[in-house]
Structure formats: structure tokens, C-alpha cells
């Protein structure tokens, strides 16, 4: 169990001011009203906080927060990750 999801949650509520009740593992980025500029900023903030880079292939409008968490956790374990 890593803190990845908690970090994502914290960035969404503080930087992006998403209300807590809108956030959940099965929610997609589109449902959170995050556009491509927002996703690029999110990726930068995540890299600053947890040291791995979320590339745009793994963060589309239809990606859920759970999928992003799994992907980032795999990167943090040092696993090679292919295209989704």
C-alpha cells in the first residue's frame, strides 16, 4: 500500500480545488473537469511529489484515478510499463 492515491487526492483538492465528494477511485479525469493543460500540470506536480512521471498515454480523459494510481505504483516499483 503506497501513498500514491492520497497524493493524487491532495493535489486535486488543494491545487485544483476539486470538492472532496467528487473524488473517488472510479472517477475519470474528464469527470473531474481536468483538461489537457490541467493534466500536464497534474503530471508535473505528481513528479515533484513522488518522483515518477505520468505520461499523457496513461492519463487520458477516460482514465480513472485508480488506473493512474496503479500505473504510478508500478513505476515507483521500477517495473517497465508499456502502453495501456
Amino acid at each position, binding site marked *: 500500500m503506497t501513498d500514491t492515491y492520497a497524493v493524487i487526492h491532495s493535489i486535486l483538492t488543494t*491545487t*485544483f*480545488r*476539486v470538492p472532496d465528494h467528487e473524488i473517488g477511485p472510479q472517477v475519470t479525469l474528464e469527470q473531474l*473537469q481536468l483538461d489537457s*493543460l*490541467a493534466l*500536464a*500540470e497534474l503530471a*508535473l506536480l505528481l*513528479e*515533484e511529489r513522488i518522483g515518477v*512521471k505520468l505520461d499523457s498515454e496513461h492519463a487520458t480523459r477516460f482514465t480513472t484515478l485508480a488506473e493512474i494510481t496503479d500505473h504510478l505504483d508500478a513505476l515507483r516499483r521500477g517495473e517497465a510499463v508499456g502502453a495501456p
Partner: protein
Amino acid sequence: MNPPGPPVAVTGLGLVTPAGDGVDATWEAVLDGRGTAARDPLLDGLPMDFSCRVPLGEDDLDRRVGRTSWRMGRPAKLAVLAAREAVRDAGLDPAAWDGSRVATVMGCGMGNMEQVEEQYRRLGRRGPDAVSPLAIPMIIPNLGAGEVSIDLKARGPNLAPATACASGATAIAVARDLLVSGACDVAVAGGVEAAISRLSTTGFRNMGALSGRTDAPGEASRPFAPDRDGFVMAEGAGVLVLERVGDAAARGARPRALLTGCGSASDAHHPTAPPEGAPGAEAALRTALGGAGLASYEIDHVNAHGTSTPLNDATEAALIARVLPHRPSVTAPKGVLGHTLGAAGAIEAALTVLTIQHRLVPPIANLTAPAPEFDIDCVTKQPRRQDVRAAVSHSFGFGGHNVVLVLTAP
């Protein structure tokens, strides 16, 4: 000389300034006449380490702006808050209006200098991938205008005039033209600046423009004082809602004041210094009076550009004494607010509207008596109760930009 043109109505005001969050807070503090400059942690270790800051932290601003704040730099946030207040004050509802007929004109002289430096620091220390994808939208000077238009769903003409320290006044003059030409029915017009940074402050300091009173920042900005020694960096936003007089009357809106004349003229002389005798400023003043159809003796009050620099105030005092020799009252809000650069012309137009409305002229902060060689009637120490039927507001900017607005009682 311009023939007199139709006046436009000022139906709403919005202010976010070092004196306070909102029109009422700012007006009270400006009437109080105390300087707002204080030590600025961002400027730690620099020879000039003080400024006038809007008393709202980044988190307060973000909460107020809401869900879109993540993508905005500080200038855009200040602009959005001031514009919302102005539109609310005008009794207009962006959810209900025809946005295609609403213009947004927000002057900005510099842009988000602090982010320029922050992103450049990231590039140098951590490499290209550490530079925010928001760097450009946070930095460019037109995003105050851009974010206001998005926030208000204003889809008409959208401009960000850059005439340095006259930008806010230029925006109001341009907005008036857009209304008179029929390009829009409502204009949300003003200025914003949040450009206090280590580089901008040092740059102004090294050209000799800033006050060096580091031991007493609150007393540093002292327009027209014999011992003035420069301006104080400040940030803020001011917005006016303008409409044609007939349109305002038709919807039952009571104008706070009328904008009856605008004059713009260039020095065509030097990047940063006014020419001897300030012919550009005088031309702007005379054009504004002509446009308003007023004789000079009909001006009751002058909102001076009054930066507290030795050269500006001497040139401007001479201009006022020459063109308006009947000694109208003179105030200079930069004593309280510092110099908000591209926002100043709009903030001070709003304060001039309030002076007309409340029949009260705010005093010039830190001034007991103007320099003896200035033959002008500066208001000092406490507000002066005065019937003001017609007032002018001066704004002058590096580049030789001179803009004068005439505001009158409705």
C-alpha cells in the same frame, strides 16, 4: 481638438487593492490616508525590500476565485475578483446577459514577473521538464483580460492595452470608444498589475524610480512632498462597468458618475522622461476637456498621477498650475496605495468616481504641505468635503503615454 462626444455611464465599480479587498474597504482606507507599504518577504536581501501588497494570501485568492484558480497567475486572479465585484455592483448578471455584446478591456503594463523568475529558476536548477505547462498563460499580460472574459462569459471585443502606468486609463478610454462606436453594449474595463518581483523591483530601483525609505516604508510614498524620493511598487486591480447612458437608463441602472471625456497623447520624446513643459500631458488634458465640452475652470478636482518621484510630481504640479490655475483640489492615491503600475489608472478612475459620488476628496498620504514651489491645492491630513461636479484623472506611462479621463456627476 475633438468636438464634444457622448458621455457614457459608470454603472459599476470593483477594486482589489493594497488598501483592501473590495470597493468599500479600499475607499475607507484611502480616506484614512495612511501608507500601506510594508516589508515584503519576496524582496528579502534586496536594497529595496518593501512594497504595497493586496492583503489576500494566495489561498484566500484561490478560494475566492474558485475552481479555475489553478491555471491563473496572481494578476488574473485579482482581475477576476475586481471584475466580478464591478458587474455585481452594476446589477448585471453574466448568466443572463447577451455575452456577445459585452467587451472586456483590461490594461496591464508588465505581466506576471514573479512567475517569469520562478519558471526561469526551475529551468536552470531542475531542467526543462520542471517548467510548468502553465508558465505562458500565467505570465502573458493579456490573461487578466482573457480570464475575466471567460469568467463573465463576455464574448465581445477583448483587449489588454499596454501603455505602462497609463494602461488602466487607456483601457477605459478604449472601452468608451467601443461603446460609442456600437461595438458592444456593456464594457468591463479597467486595469490589473501584480508584477512585484525581485527583478522588476531591482530594475525600477536601478533606474532611480523607487523610494529608498527602507527604514519607514509606510512613509515612503509621499506625492508632491518636498522630500519625496520615488514611488513604491504595488499590485492591484480596478474595474469599471461602462454603458451608454440611454442603455443604463433603459434598464433602470443609476450611474455612479459619467465618463464625459478622454484624451490620449504621446510625448514622442524619450522612453522614460517627460519633455520639458510636458506638452504631451497637456495635450491629453486639453483633449479630454474638449471632448467633455468643459472649460478648464469647470474642473473642481484633480486625481493626480502623483507617483512621488521628483520629476513626475514637479512636471505634473506645473501642468496643473498652468492649465487649471483656479486651484481645484488635488489628491494622489499613490501615497496610500503605492504605484500599481498598469492598474493605477483604473483604480484611480474608480476612486475619482467615489469622490464625485460621496463629495469627499481623500487626503494625500504622508504629505503635510506640498513642495513650496508647487502652486496647487493638495488635500492633506484628512478628507475634504467638497462638491465635485467635474474631475480629471491623470495617468502617464513610460513610453510617453499620457491619458486623461474626465468624470462628472450624473
